[in-house]
């Protein structure tokens, strides 16, 4: 429609690459949802925090975002663990709307702390490889996004191994299925909750490092991702890891194509409309996982 096929193809390919990182953000969200049965509203703000952390790691220590990936993932795992253990868990006392409010409070704090420290200007890292492209047939692909795509798939595979082959993974799945039963056989549920939240947050740190070479940072950047991530999670089925990845790819393509046809500012609407439509049309499927 109006565009030559190679431009369409390029939009689809770039959408797929961006979608993989969306999928990674959604992966953390869906994991937390699947196990803790909470909607982590602070997910976007934690992503913002991770992006600033990667930004500062580059500015202060000269650390390349890709090199910062593993230390930051470790740091954010600990952060997520502590936030769940010390703040979200005790404050919400298992109540659904309390969790929503507590995570909203967290997101307000993080977002505005970033605003107070870094002000509202958008910042970008200037890396030599940020603009580098490879040519695949007729299609030009951004190298940082290609790397993001690869790392996301690798991470998803790692997560799969963790969940199926390790004791922690088994404990996480047990808690997700039957909290009381898991507690009865001696699993420390509060600990597993915090570990899961930590893994979800670590996913964000990695996503931040993958995004930074080709994306800007601002105090509200996470908001752009949080509804996208929710859309993906809803689309792919709450708690489903493959669903998150496939949903991420789909949304990436939708965003890329609607940006092409409607321009960047209106293109964002596409995602919100899909989110609303999915929620409105498939609500029963969505509540399946809820107690």
């Amino acid at each position, binding site marked *: 429609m109006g565009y030559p096929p190679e431009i369409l193809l390029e939009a689809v390919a770039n959408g797929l690459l961006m979608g993989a990182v969306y999928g990674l953000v959604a992966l953390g969200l869906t994991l937390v949802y699947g196990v803790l049965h909470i909607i982590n509203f602070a997910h976007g703000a934690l992503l913002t925090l991770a992006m600033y952390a990667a930004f500062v790691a580059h500015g202060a220590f000269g650390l390349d975002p890709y090199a910062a990936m593993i230390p930051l993932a470790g740091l954010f795992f600990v952060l997520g663990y502590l936030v769940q253990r010390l703040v979200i868990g*005790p404050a919400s006392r298992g109540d*659904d709307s309390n969790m929503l409010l507590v995570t909203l409070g*967290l997101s307000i*704090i993080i977002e505005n702390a970033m*605003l*107070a420290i870094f002000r509202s200007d958008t910042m970008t890292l200037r890396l030599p490889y940020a603009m580098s492209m490879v040519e695949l047939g007729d299609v030009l692909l951004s190298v940082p996004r290609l790397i993001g795509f690869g790392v996301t798939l690798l991470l998803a595979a790692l997560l799969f191994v963790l969940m199926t082959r390790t004791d922690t993974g088994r404990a996480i799945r047990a808690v997700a299925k039957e909290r009381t039963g898991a507690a009865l056989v001696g699993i420390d549920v509060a600990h597993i909750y915090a570990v899961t939240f930590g893994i979800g947050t670590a996913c964000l740190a990695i996503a931040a490092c993958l995004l930074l070479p080709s994306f800007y940072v601002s105090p509200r950047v996470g908001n752009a991702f949080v509804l996208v991530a929710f859309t993906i999670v809803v689309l792919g089925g709450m708690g489903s890891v493959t669903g998150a990845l496939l949903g991420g790819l789909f949304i990436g393509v939708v965003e890329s194509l609607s940006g092409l046809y409607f321009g960047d*500012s209106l293109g964002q609407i596409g995602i*919100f409309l899909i989110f609303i439509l999915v*929620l*409105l049309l498939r609500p029963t499927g969505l509540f399946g996982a809820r107690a």
Partner: protein
Amino acid sequence: MTIREALPILGFLVVAVLVSLFVTSNVVLNFLVFTLILAIAAQGWNLLGGYGGQYSFGHAAFFGMGAYVSAILQQRFGVNAYPAVAFGMVAAALLGYAIGAMVFRAGLRGSYFALVTLAFAEVLRILANAIEITGGAAGLLISLNLGAGNLQFANRSSFLILAAVLLALAMLMTLAVEKSRIGAQLVAVRENEAAAAALGVDILAVKLRAISLSAGLTGAAGALYAQYFLYIDSNIAFGTWISVEALLAPIIGGAGTVFGPLIGALILQGLSEGTKMLIGKIPGVDLIIFGALLILVVRFPLHRIPGVIAARWRGKGAP
């Protein structure tokens, strides 16, 4: 609702009028007008969220609708301010009904309701920023045309009285809802939706009425905001800030009480001004405190105290 039950609201109005007569500092008057506008928006949220237990994260949709419809009617179509504000309110209520009809019919509750309302507000924000009639990213100015006939006042104390009267009306309406059958049904829906349905409450109808009233009130606050500042843009009218503050004020001041939103709005704006005085104007610091306060009041639900005291005090007067 009896006269006695409405006495505290009258008391509030008397205090507001006295303040408007004796306070001359523009800073203080500005603070109070803004707080009252916020309290009206928050009262709207309170009707649906506090009494009905449906936590909206997107009341900016209604605030912005009220503000934009009123401003566009005045600026682009030459409509007088009074009908324009009324139309803004009605448009917001209709939007509330339309959103409610979609999301409540689809059975969205809890977190999903919160998220979907947020998504609606964001869609409207992006639209208002992109289309022409709203003035796009440049925003919309209402031409200065002072005079009570245009709902524009040269002195801030007149506007304070106007805002106080509107808030008093909003509180009276809330009180009337609280004492009526629909109020009881709304609370029943909040406490246990399945049980309420089993007892014959028409859940959808109750929720739809609540969201329409709620949206209309918050829309009135938006129209009033536009009338006071004579300027709006998409990030003011449909921005997250108003969704957050409309939710925080009742939760901090006492959700599901008539005075909760006002008390909460006073606490929030007081804190905000206090921090500005103490540490200067660093953007975001007041919101950091709001966020911490939100977590604290959820962790230690003592925050209901002001609202509960108000309810007790009112209760004592009742026969």
